[in-house]
């Protein structure tokens, strides 16, 4: 069986986001083979009822965005589609600037975001990973679920994604200082 379709089967059956590494393991193929098969699958699946979603090095299958409104009417267990202003703001920070620490989110918003972050996490819109530079700290980043909510298949589809890449220099240098906010600027610690 062609690797592209084997991967499609695996993704369908597992029904959860899988890393490229995991797919290599499951399909017994090299990373190059899997990567190019996924690119092919992404191409084949575009414009069909099921699309390939990417997030960093993870992939998953989802319904096409165009079917969204039909499914929405069928969806019953659905949570409210509207998010409050603070929740949206926090999501935007994590989407465009993540992975980042909660203290950095607080610094940007100027308020403590503990509970908003916890709720977004419980709703599966963001997730927590260990900070590779400090194993006592966590970093927050978007989940597949969030991409699905936004109707995008990868980060590059975010509006102003490219513009932001150009701004990244100033954003990042800002971000570096944000990792050490001064006590006086932090509200609660």
């Amino acid at each position: 069986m062609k690797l592209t379709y084997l991967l499609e089967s695996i993704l369908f059956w597992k029904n959860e986001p899988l890393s490229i590494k995991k797919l290599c393991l499951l399909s017994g193929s090299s990373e190059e083979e899997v990567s190019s098969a996924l690119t092919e699958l992404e191409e084949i699946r575009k414009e069909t009822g099921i699309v390939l979603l990417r997030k960093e090095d993870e992939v998953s299958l989802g319904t096409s965005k165009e079917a969204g409104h039909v499914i929405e009417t069928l969806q019953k267990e659905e949570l409210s589609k509207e998010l409050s202003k603070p929740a949206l703001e926090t999501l935007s920070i994590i989407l465009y600037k993540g992975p980042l620490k909660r203290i950095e989110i607080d610094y940007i918003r100027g308020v403590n975001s503990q509970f908003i972050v916890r709720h977004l996490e419980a709703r599966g819109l963001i997730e927590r990973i260990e900070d590779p530079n400090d194993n006592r700290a966590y970093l927050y980043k978007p989940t597949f679920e969030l991409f699905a909510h936004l109707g995008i298949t990868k980060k590059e589809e975010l509006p102003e994604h490219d513009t932001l890449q150009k701004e990244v220099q100033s954003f990042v240098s800002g971000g570096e200082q944000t990792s050490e906010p001064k006590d006086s600027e932090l509200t609660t610690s």
Partner: protein
Amino acid sequence: MTGQNFIIKHEIFEGPLDLLLSLIEKRKLLINEISLAKITDDYISHIKEITEYKLTDRANFIVISSTLILIKSRSLLPGLTLSPEEEEGIEDLEKRLRIYQRIKELTVHVKNHYEGERIYFSRDKKQSLSFFVPDQNITISNMLLALKDVVGKFPKVIHTPKTIVKQVMSLEDMMDKLQDRIQSALKMSFRDFSGIKKVITQEEKVHIIVSFLAMLELVKQGLLEVKQESRFDDIEIEKTNISVPVY
């Protein structure tokens, strides 16, 4: 004052940055020191009324106000020299506002997308319980330990540090206190009033700043006159009209 500031009175702001940005944008100003000096009064008048905010949140507003006050005092007292740390604080506030403003722009996109057509994952199949596959970790004692772990990780309600709470006295209290002191001692120094010592703690610093702001406010209202002989000298405070007490 300006007619605009009534607009902000009944809005609840997420935090000091939210409030500042909204004040700047309502006046169609750019984010810079001059704009910040202009909106300091509106900011202060808003935080005087923020009784509906929780104490922690009020502390957030007051903390940022100290930087604003520095900016404002520099614009009122051109001779005022700020320490490198204070300069940095001002630059940092401007930078934070710019980042926050950008985030707000991006939030519009996120909102539009979030409320638009979404992608759905496959739903979970109803499992037919044909296999029961436990493992050796599922024991009564492990279950107890696991749940205790979960309970132990519940977030604690954050208590605002007392030091911050202590600072969150209202600006009016401070101004009343200042005026009272002036009534009794016609002339006094800022140093006496704010209680500056050689070594100052963070909380005392906030206290000094709030005192200073209160003083500037009174100067502006024409109730006080201040003079400083030379830089770093004590500031002398005097009532402007001795014969006609102002109540």
